[in-house]
């Protein structure tokens, strides 16, 4: 299907193998340039992006990205053609200028950060469009490719020199990150704390701004000015979903940036005119989508599953508590059988609901699996029931004794906490309450192993 779209023969798999074959054929050609450039800029943007995502300044990348346009056009006019170093220099100057102007406006007006960014980058971008039209009217050599520089980038057009330049920038950026690791990371998490440690927060901010601008400038050729911010934000946000440690986040973000970059290079290899930046962004977005749903700790589906499990467990534990109390009423006999109708009456629920709860408890082997009615509590189930009741009554006692609540006000709270009380807290409660034996209603607190 992909092949048909791009007017090539062969299945997607042969395309990939051809791409890889071209990459590892021992010759260093334009394909290798594009792929290496993509990896380098992906790593640079991903690593630096981690910091701006943490600092909640994700849109700064967008602002600087748009703002480089007038510099690019002026560079084009000054060089009288497409001379990459001059373009990059122009871009660098106007990018830094916009960052500075944003900072000044923030300080001197009552406008919010968002407005300051929006004002500056659209103003710069408008100027860029004005200049762009002038460039195009002059019909200088290579000016037709300028549109590409803006909208989607074109990584296929990257030369060996550009690749080396991007590689050098990557090395420089990574070196800076390593050297300034401590101030960068501390000030990203807690600016005031960093200030208290004597870290020059303002200078660190400027350093990051300069690094960002450089990263954006080297990326515009491959990604385009409108989309360059995505390469900063999306891989970093993906890393953010996958880990809680900054070091790992930076490494993961760099990896995802490189992965997105190579995907863009692949599509650019299939079709030289394809907007490689758009493909990079879509690939990175796909990875983000996967992490958004599947990330083990912070992903949507694992979180939903955890919540579901917790609800099920709570439901089963509530059943156990009821059974334990019924057993208490009988005088704690060894008879572990409970009629479903009796349980339903006790819990003010329908027998169907009790059956549902029984199945959930049976899955945990707390009640006998093949006895729908009566429900038969197992040894393990009794142990568990004792623990729950113990949690409940200890907490009620704690609330009446230590928090001075009336004994008829504590049940609802204990009902909730009995399911989530950790062991060490329990131990502390016991010590605090002098190993009690009766709850505020005068019912015994079952002894536990703890």
């Amino acid at each position, binding site marked *: 299907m992909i092949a048909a779209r791009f007017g090539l023969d062969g299945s997607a798999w042969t395309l990939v193998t051809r791409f890889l074959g071209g990459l590892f054929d021992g010759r260093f050609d334009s394909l290798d340039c594009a792929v290496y450039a993509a990896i380098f800029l992906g790593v640079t943007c991903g690593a630096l992006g981690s910091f701006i995502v943490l600092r909640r300044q994700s849109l700064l990348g967008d602002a600087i990205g748009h703002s480089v346009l007038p510099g690019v056009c002026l560079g084009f006019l000054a060089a009288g053609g497409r001379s990459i170093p001059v373009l990059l220099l122009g871009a660098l100057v106007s990018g830094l200028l916009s960052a500075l102007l944003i900072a000044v406006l923030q300080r001197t007006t009552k406008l919010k950060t968002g407005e300051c960014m*929006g*004002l500056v980058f659209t103003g710069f971008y408008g100027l860029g469009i004005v200049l762009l039209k002038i460039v195009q009217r002059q019909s200088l050599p290579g000016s037709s490719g300028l549109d590409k520089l803006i909208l989607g980038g074109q990584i296929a057009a990257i030369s060996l020199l550009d690749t080396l330049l991007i590689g050098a920038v990557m090395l420089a950026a990574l070196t800076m990150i390593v050297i300034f690791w401590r101030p960068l990371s501390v000030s990203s998490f807690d600016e005031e704390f960093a200030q208290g440690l004597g870290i020059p927060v303002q200078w660190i901010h400027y350093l990051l701004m300069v690094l960002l601008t450089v990263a954006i400038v080297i990326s515009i050729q491959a990604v385009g000015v409108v*989309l360059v911010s995505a390469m900063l934000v999306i891989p970093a946000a993906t890393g953010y979903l996958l880990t809680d440690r900054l070091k790992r986040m930076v490494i993961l973000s760099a990896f995802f940036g490189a992965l997105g970059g190579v995907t863009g290079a692949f599509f650019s290899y299939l079709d030289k005119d394809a907007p490689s930046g758009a493909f990079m962004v879509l690939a990175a977005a796909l990875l983000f989508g996967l992490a958004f749903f599947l990330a083990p700790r912070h992903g949507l589906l694992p979180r939903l599953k955890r919540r579901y499990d917790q609800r099920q467990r709570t439901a089963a534990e509530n059943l156990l508590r009821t059974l334990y109390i019924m057993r208490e009423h009988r005088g704690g006999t060894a008879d572990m059988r409970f009629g479903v109708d009796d349980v339903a009456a006790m819990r003010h629920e329908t027998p169907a609901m009790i059956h549902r709860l029984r199945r959930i408890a049976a899955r945990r082997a707390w009640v006998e699996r093949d006895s729908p009615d009566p429900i038969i509590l197992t040894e393990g189930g009794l142990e568990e029931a004792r623990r729950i009741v113990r949690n409940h009554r200890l907490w009620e006692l704690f609330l009446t004794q230590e928090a001075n609540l009336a004994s008829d006000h504590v049940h609802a709270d204990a009902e909730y906490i009995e399911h989530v009380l950790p062991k060490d807290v329990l131990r502390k409660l016991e010590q605090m309450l002098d190993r009690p034996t009766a709850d505020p209603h005068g019912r015994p607190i079952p002894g536990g192993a703890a």
Partner: protein
Amino acid sequence: MTLPHPAFSIHHSAFPLGSLLTPWTPTSLEVYWPMILQGILVSVALGLIGCFLVVRGLSLLGDALSHSVLPGIVLGFLVSGSLSSPLILVGATIMGLLAGVLVHSVHHHSRVKEDASLGIVFTTLFALGVVMINRYAGQADLDPGCVLYGNIEHFIVNVNARWVPAAPGHERYTFDPRPLLPMALILLTIVVLLVVFYRQLLVTTFDRAMAISLGINATLIHYGLLTMLSLTVVASFEAVGAVLAVALLIMPGATARLWTDRMGRMLFIAAGHAILSTLFGYWLAHRSVVDTSAAGAITVAGFALFLLSWLFAPRTGLLTTARQRRRLSAVIDSENLVKAIEELKDDATFDNLAKSLNESPKALRRRLNDGIRRGWFKLDAQQRVHLTDAGRAESARLTRAHDLWEQYLQQDLGLPPDHVHDAAEWIEHHLSKDKLAHLAEHLQKPPSP
């Protein structure tokens, strides 16, 4: 969409590029008015909505929205096959609202913060649109340039079809206003909605809790605003493109914000800013020496107007406040000089004053001249400085202000006597006549010395 088009040939032949600035003439107005009118409609509509985005702190949502509508536009275009089909409006509005929902759900259902969520959603949707254009641009006449910077010149091309000679030898343009109609309708809707729901908009913007207690549905108002925003952005897309639409959204509101604190005035100033930058932008793009994209030039003009306001706006302008501060410090310096002369009595020579105020001769000379101009003191034959009656009155006022404030701090705030001098030294320059009278009354002193 390049323009091999009479309007431009007239322009170039009648006013060659060499002549630097060419003013508007009846002929040029005749050619350009549809473009100008469209520009004004677009920028006023965006500017009015933008005011609410600016005060609600949502301006970057406008940015995100205007990028996100791209796939909707391409989709509508591919289905209908025409850029003027209403399907485009529908597709893009849906896409805009979808983007709003996506941004909300990404940062609501994960640990990703709102700014990153904005950045992810709109770039992804925009990239999708770019890829769609790239894939299908061959099959359809869809101009990627339009996405970048719009093409408001298109409006002359449209009306040009009806370019007819009115009389032999005297060619006139007759225009069909229909292409302007959608934007005019949208602007009208915005104005009507603004007038009808002004109170609700105002209350939900500034005090959401109060709005809810008044029974106003704040969420409904919010999404209504977003819908109008998407509609307007899409309708103006063809004229100004994605990014410049953002410019026209933010700039008028932000500029007006510098001029006033009142919402009603802000709306009018924003509309004025929008109109001015449109006119100036057109002039820049087509009547001055630079012949360039009108949409880009409008943005540049709008930004220039903002920067001017930033420097010169009354009360908040950078230079205005700097001048006020300088004037105030000059007054304070002169007043301190009055006190120094009063203290030194007959020894108030130039050198003594310089010593007592710890001041360079040059600065002191300037201050003395300033005070003489105010009529506060005069020089005698020995170059000693004496206070005039006015100067003595001034000195008495300062002393009185100083004393009253010291007493106030001691009596009402219970500060120890050695802690009040510095504060009084500073505030004596800032207490107005009313405040002094009030203070005297409060401390049960006679109203005047």
